[in-house]
């Protein structure tokens, strides 16, 4: 049965009442996996006073940034205009960013703010009472928001709703009250250092395989994907999805680097630039994964870290990771888009836009545009390698989320709602009239592919590396 038939109009109660799934947690507990015994990954335990611990964590993790966003909201409702959940479900009052944020704000008001502690009813302050309430909160912060930050940019008061959502997620992660998918991915990243539990053997063999294919394709036995080479111009880091499911992007990159005559390497360890800590709100995991990358670059004395096409990976590795890990940046880090731009600018590679003649549009990933600052660079590259580029509207900082952000792709239970609210994005895509939609995020690739299928659009998702590699003149 296809997706089209499964999601008519979803009742929001069906989403917010989804139970806490514990199968994987029980398995992890039985197997006594390292990350659990070492206390990195928390399992849900109904015996522990979870509500009280929630309040303690709320207090402990509070920062000035968060506190100001907690107190500044005036309940004006302007943010409702910007959220793809609201715009796709205008009749559902529980979709507004402010409603979602209020679910955590009310607890802040009740326990930390002033008026709410004395007159809770007056300011709608309140507190979870049972673990069931926490589960309800889990469904709201994980299931009804993709943390895209669009509302943040549209709030007259400058309230960072997406930051509040991530904060709530982080506390719930510390209590083990998370969707099963979030638990699984966190477990894998703690256990294996990468999101998809790719073993070192699989990693190395896949790279080797890509190398062989490339050597064959170009009929050149000298082409290499260097591993752990020291003193290179840059260290290339990737998304494990590229190893596990679609290594074509690695071969595109290797091909371009080869023609640019680049001195590059991939690390044996610390190659995963993605970071599930961004989605789960777990700064500890965020710190661990980011540090792996930074330390690998230091170990190899690489002059630069290059991050492959990935939205949350770019945001985590380039920006947030240093703060999570409390690590002063000492080596430049950049998206591969910048690397490509330099190659084209300096004439290190030659490209012919006529080779990509199909109409192509660009989807800005939330984490790269709104939260990452790469706005013009991808467009610059696309205009060099495509002959029919069409802008999407709205775009850049105002682009809509692919609807699969915030880790939602790993949480199947929320998919029907995700597909319903992807309508905004589908309409936006359709209006461009393009045949290809290009994005620089693997997460968006899957999010967009899902919605293209769901809404039966005549489109294909591509990435910049693929287009550049295709446009190469050798």
């Amino acid at each position, binding site marked *: 049965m296809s997706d089209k038939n499964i999601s008519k109009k979803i009742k929001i109660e069906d989403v917010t009442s989804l139970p806490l799934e514990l199968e994987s947690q029980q398995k992890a507990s039985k197997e006594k996996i390292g990350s659990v015994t070492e206390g990195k990954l928390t399992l849900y335990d109904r015996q522990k006073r979870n509500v009280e611990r929630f309040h303690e964590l709320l207090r402990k993790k509070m920062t000035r940034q968060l506190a100001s966003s907690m*107190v500044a909201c005036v309940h004006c409702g302007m943010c409702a205009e910007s959220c793809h959940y*609201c715009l796709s479900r205008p009749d559902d009052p529980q979709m507004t960013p402010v409603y979602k944020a209020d679910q955590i704000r009310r607890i802040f008001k009740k326990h930390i703010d002033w*008026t709410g502690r004395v007159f809770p009813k007056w300011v709608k302050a309140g507190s979870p009472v049972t673990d069931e309430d926490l589960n309800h909160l889990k469904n709201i912060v994980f299931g009804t928001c993709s943390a895209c930050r669009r509302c943040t940019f549209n709030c007259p*008061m400058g309230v960072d709703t997406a930051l509040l959502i991530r904060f709530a997620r982080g506390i719930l992660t510390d209590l083990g009250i998370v969707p099963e998918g979030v638990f699984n991915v966190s477990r894998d990243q703690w256990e294996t250092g990468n999101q998809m539990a790719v073993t070192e053997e699989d990693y190395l063999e896949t790279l080797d395989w890509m190398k062989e294919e490339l050597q064959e394709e170009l009929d050149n036995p000298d082409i290499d994907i260097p591993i752990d080479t020291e003193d290179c111009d840059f260290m290339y880091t990737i998304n494990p999805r590229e190893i596990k499911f679609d290594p074509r992007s690695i071969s595109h990159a290797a091909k371009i680097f080869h023609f640019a005559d680049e001195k590059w390497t991939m690390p044996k360890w610390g190659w995963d630039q993605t970071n599930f800590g961004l989605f789960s709100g777990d700064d500890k995991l965020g710190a661990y994964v980011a540090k792996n990358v930074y330390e690998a670059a230091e170990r190899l004395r690489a002059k630069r870290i290059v991050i492959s096409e990935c939205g949350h990976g770019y945001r985590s590795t380039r*920006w947030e990771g240093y703060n999570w890990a409390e690590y002063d940046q000492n080596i430049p880090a950049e998206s591969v888009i910048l690397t490509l731009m330099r190659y084209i600018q300096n004439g290190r590679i030659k490209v012919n836009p006529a080779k990509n003649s199909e109409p192509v549009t660009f989807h800005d990933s939330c984490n790269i545009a709104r939260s990452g*600052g790469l706005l013009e660079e991808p467009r610059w590259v696309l205009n060099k390698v495509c002959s029919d580029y069409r802008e999407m509207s709205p775009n850049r900082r105002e682009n809509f989320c692919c609807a699969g952000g915030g880790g939602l792709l790993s949480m199947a239970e929320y998919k029907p709602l995700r597909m319903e609210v992807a309508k905004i994005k589908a309409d936006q895509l359709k209006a461009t009239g393009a045949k290809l939609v290009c994005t620089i995020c693997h997460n968006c690739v899957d999010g967009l592919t899902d919605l293209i299928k769901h809404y039966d659009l005549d489109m294909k998702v591509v990435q910049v590396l693929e287009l550049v590699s295709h446009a190469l003149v050798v």
Partner: protein
Amino acid sequence: MSDILYFLENKVQIVALSFLLFVYILRIFWLFRFKSRKEQSYSEGNATACIAHSMLNVAMPWAMESIRKKPFFYIQFILFHMGVIFAIAATFIIPYGPQLFNIQAVVWIFQFIVGMAFIVGMFRLYRRFANPSIRLISSRDDYFSLILMIFYFGVAFLAIPNNYHRSEWPLILFFALTAFFLIYVPFSKIGHYLYYPFTRFFLGRTMGHRGVYAKRKKCRYPEGL
């Protein structure tokens, strides 16, 4: 002028104002008690420029899509907050510079603005009740603050001509309300303007640091990189 009005216009007003300032200072200290995170990555933008940009957001109706889509809300916002400024100005003009309200045109301007704010307030109240999304998030404080403001604008409208020899009660009510306000505000949503610089500063700093706005041509690496 009766003693009670004199007392309200001067002593009570000053005491209430001092109280407000005192609570605000406490409140700012309270906010500063929470730790702030510093950025440890290299910047790609101009954080200072972006903070300025972010702070000026109120004056840039084109900067946000939500406002571009609903320009009427911006007009409302301006009228409502102008009403607040003019009403507060009146609370100082009446005791300390009443000559100004001898000029009929000034009185009309003040009355016009406060009157418009009154109408906007009514509209906002209607919206708060009628729009299910807004109703769901509204607290008693939201309703009460808004009704209070509407009432305040109404009273200010009547008090501004400053005709205490004809009838004193609008003035008494106006100054009594002002005093109540000054004490209530720091504990309610009306004090939001105190937080605006904070949220805007943080947002501006983060976005400026990352070059989401005010991007530098070249990432500024430390010397030698």
